[in-house]
């Protein structure tokens, strides 16, 4: 009965749209079948999309959307209807009628091959029927990637319906790519030029393949177009690769810099070998997590901005812990560097286990707000990822803040004075004890900020700090103990060299080579890049 009604409704709409009606129930049963049947149903549906009525488009969209989001329930019994889970209850998908109860069954697991088909199908449906232009444009991007697998009349149909003239032109442009392998040489030349707008390796591979085409030998215009396109695309790729290397180096450098700037203050300016520095980074990340959870509970609207809101908390909490540590432990050990090394190591183990008891060993679930998700293609194959850009920007701001505080503020002047000559600074009335405490707190707070900046990039767990301690000592020693400029240059150098070596000899060799280079450099200049006159003992 229901099925007849469905066919009737379908017929009415079909007549209105002047197209063949979609056989909904068989389509759904096909989608619910095994991988092969499901894939075939998707293929049939895709080739039918250009002629579907608006009602059938909405139906197909619901079915494919339901499949991909696992809201589609395939019934165990063939007599039960294929259902779609709704916010309240369920609907019979073929008829749209609400169902009293969800039929017994399960959401099918989509195989990888079919997932690609369904995603293409969902994009085709969105291009034809999505209400907003941005969604249609996004769908076009998906389809353009695999234009060869899309029926040609789909683009024609979509361009005909498209109300936005700019988007309609883009649709036709993608459609024209299909004539790349046609017979009309003028169209082919135009298609090559359009293809070259893509400027990535995938396009280059396709263009290079055209050199084997018979037309390349027989038609000089075509050959010239292919050569020009290949040159244009490979030029863009070369620029993109260089930019990617620079960007990757810069982003790695920003991480190294964030991890080591706090140590540059504590070890560099104060001469304390603080092995708990990594744990301050970890605590900064945990404070960020606590702020995130607090926002989730109290101000869910601001949850996306937790990384910004947590900045003062991450800094202050770790700074206070640092000050407490300095006042209770470190100040007794200023004249005994070996003891301070052992004591801070103990503190590091203590903090790790404290966090482990308090939060557990698992990786924390950090939200990824929209502004650090994904990336944007710049040129060639260079994708600028937002989370790395966030880290780079954060490092730049931290550098500016640190530089200002040390070079331009009163307390900075005091810190520099105490560093250069503690006794003389004391004689002229600088409260050296308080300066020590503040400097240590500042160095710890910077590590806390590092934890915040690294939390969207790395796993946050009690162990995370130990990964950074070696790298940060490496940067500080190479840069020249006590020099902020040295820290920056060392971080940039190590980051860039790592990224340059990695693709050639692999990540393991990159680490070895970088360490060997540092050893060689320190043989030549034991004091690092920059030297600051200070109380080295």
């Amino acid at each position, binding site marked *: 009965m229901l099925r007849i009604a469905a066919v009737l409704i379908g017929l009415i709409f079909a007549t209105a749209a002047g197209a063949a009606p979609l056989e909904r129930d068989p389509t759904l049963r096909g989608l619910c079948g095994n*991988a092969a049947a499901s894939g075939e149903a998707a293929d049939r549906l895709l080739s039918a999309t250009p002629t579907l009525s608006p009602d059938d488009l909405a139906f197909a969209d619901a079915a494919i959307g339901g499949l991909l989001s696992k809201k589609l329930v395939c019934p165990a019994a063939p007599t039960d209807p294929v259902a779609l889970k709704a916010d309240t209850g369920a609907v019979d998908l073929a008829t749209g009628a609400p169902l009293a109860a969800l039929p017994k069954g399960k959401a099918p697991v989509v195989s990888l*091959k079919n997932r*690609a088909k369904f995603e293409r199908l969902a994009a085709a449906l969105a291009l034809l029927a999505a209400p907003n232009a941005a969604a249609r444009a996004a769908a076009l991007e998906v389809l353009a990637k695999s234009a060869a697998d899309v029926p040609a009349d789909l683009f024609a149909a979509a361009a005909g319906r498209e109300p936005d003239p700019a988007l309609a032109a883009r649709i036709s442009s993608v459609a024209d790519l299909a004539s790349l392998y046609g017979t009309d040489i003028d169209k082919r030349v135009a298609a090559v030029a359009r293809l070259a707008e893509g400027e990535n390796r995938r396009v280059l591979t396709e263009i290079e393949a055209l050199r084997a085409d018979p037309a390349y030998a027989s038609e000089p215009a075509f050959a010239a177009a292919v050569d020009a396109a290949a040159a244009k695309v490979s030029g863009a790729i070369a620029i993109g690769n260089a930019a*990617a290397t620079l960007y990757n180096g810069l982003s790695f450098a920003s991480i190294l810099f964030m991890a080591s700037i706090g140590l540059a203050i504590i070890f560099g300016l104060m001469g304390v070998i603080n092995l708990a520095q990594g744990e301050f980074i970890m605590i900064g990340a945990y404070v960020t997590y606590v702020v995130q959870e607090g926002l989730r509970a109290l101000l869910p609207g601001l949850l996306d901005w937790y990384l910004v809101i947590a900045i003062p908390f991450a800094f202050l909490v770790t700074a206070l812990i640092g000050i407490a540590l300095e006042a209770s432990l470190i100040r007794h050990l200023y004249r005994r560097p070996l003891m301070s090394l052992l004591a801070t190591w103990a503190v590091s183990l203590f903090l790790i286990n404290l966090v482990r008891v308090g939060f557990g060993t698992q990786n924390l679930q950090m939200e990824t707000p929209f502004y650090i998700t994904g990336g944007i293609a710049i040129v060639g194959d260079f994708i600028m990822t937002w989370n790395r850009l966030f880290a780079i920007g954060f490092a730049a701001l931290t550098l500016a803040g640190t530089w200002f505080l040390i070079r331009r503020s009163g307390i900075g002047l005091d810190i520099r004075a105490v560093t250069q000559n503690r006794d003389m600074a004391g004689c002229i009335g600088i409260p050296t004890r308080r300066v020590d405490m503040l400097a240590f707190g500042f160095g710890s707070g910077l590590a806390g900020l590092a934890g915040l900046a690294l939390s969207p990039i790395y796993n946050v767990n009690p162990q995370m700090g130990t990964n950074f301690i070696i790298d940060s000592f490496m940067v500080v020693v190479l840069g020249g103990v006590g020099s902020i400029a040295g820290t920056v240059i060392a971080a940039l150098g190590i980051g860039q060299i790592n990224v340059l070596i990695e693709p050639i000899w692999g990540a393991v060799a990159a680490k070895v080579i970088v360490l060997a280079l540092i050893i060689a450099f320190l043989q030549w200049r034991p004091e690092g890049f920059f030297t600051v006159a200070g109380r080295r003992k």
Partner: protein
Amino acid sequence: MTNFTRRSIIKAAGVAGAGLVLPLSAPNIIRSARAADTVKLGCLFSSSGTMANIEGRLNFVVKMAADEINAAGGVNGKMIDVLTSDPASDWPLYAQIGKQMLQQEGVAALFGCWTSVSRKSVLPVVEQSNGLLFYPLHFEGDENSKNVVYVNSPPASSVLPAVDYLMSDEGVSAKRFFMLGSDYVWPRTINKQLKGYFASKGIAETAWKEEYVPLGFSNFQTLVNQIRAFADEEGGQPVVILTCVGSSIPDFFREFINQGIKATDVPVLGLDVVEADLEGLDTAPLVGHLNCWAYLQAAEGPANEKFLADWKGYVEKNAVPYRADVSIDPMVSAYDSVHLWAMAAAKAGSFDVPEVTKAFDGLSFDCPSGYKIAMTAENNYVSRGVFIGSVNEAQGFDILWQSEDTPKPVPFSPFG
């Protein structure tokens, strides 16, 4: 107030500190208080260090299985007493504690190790004391000791079926392979065997690429760039075979997402990826990536329902610090191990290792995976089912494919 001199505070702090430290510095092995007439089993799973998060939960599974057996009357008239320890993810410490357990505590069997390097470290100890070690992880094979029971699958019955699936029409017709692993024995051996396998299938050497990163590596930008470049070359569908372990796994996936690669573009077959590795990740952009194990939480059947309910109950009753709703393959394998040992000991009527080993022939057990797992006289391998999982939105895996029965384990790979 005046009484609080600095000295008295330090003294008080010292006493408080000693109070805190003493219970922690108790001997390594934690014994439960049980009377005589018990048989001891030892666990070698780290609850601190890099492996803590995934390995630590296996201690509790072994205890849970022992409780089950004890509730049913024990083995040979004796109750099982489980000793746990913490080798702290420090490979040589596994051997040291293993030796202590075998020689001083006289445990009837050991259950332990996750990484192959820890197993290799314990191996000489169990062989020397003629002990018995149940190893619950799938691994690189190429080892066959009479003192180790390999409860999980060698590559021939885990990795190769998954690669076959990827290469098939039903999978993605994979033609090219980017092998990315952590730099130690398991990934290198697996990749060596895979290369042999590809060669035997007539796949050209240009169709694969092999890269290694140090353990704990996290900066995957350049490598993901390389994967994109590899994927854009000609020659057919590329896939990534990921043998990274530990914290590198989520870091890799995070970079993979950010560079905008989807499973439908380049699928990743993560050989060591379990549900616990996806904790803390938004898995929506990862949907479709694959793993392969001898058990997945989504396995159907009453045995799995019972196991999941038992684990949930055990976690809640004993306040176990792990998630009650996550169950991973090595947990089930550890659970199977205890039952297999108990069945063998009961069959032999003895706890002597040679007797128990002899009794392995013909044992079978209804594993929570839904397969009847079995052992033969040929070797100490257990034949298990094969699952291929596909990452879903809920930080778990859906079953994409599973074998019809349990393939016969092949300890030594013919491919390398």
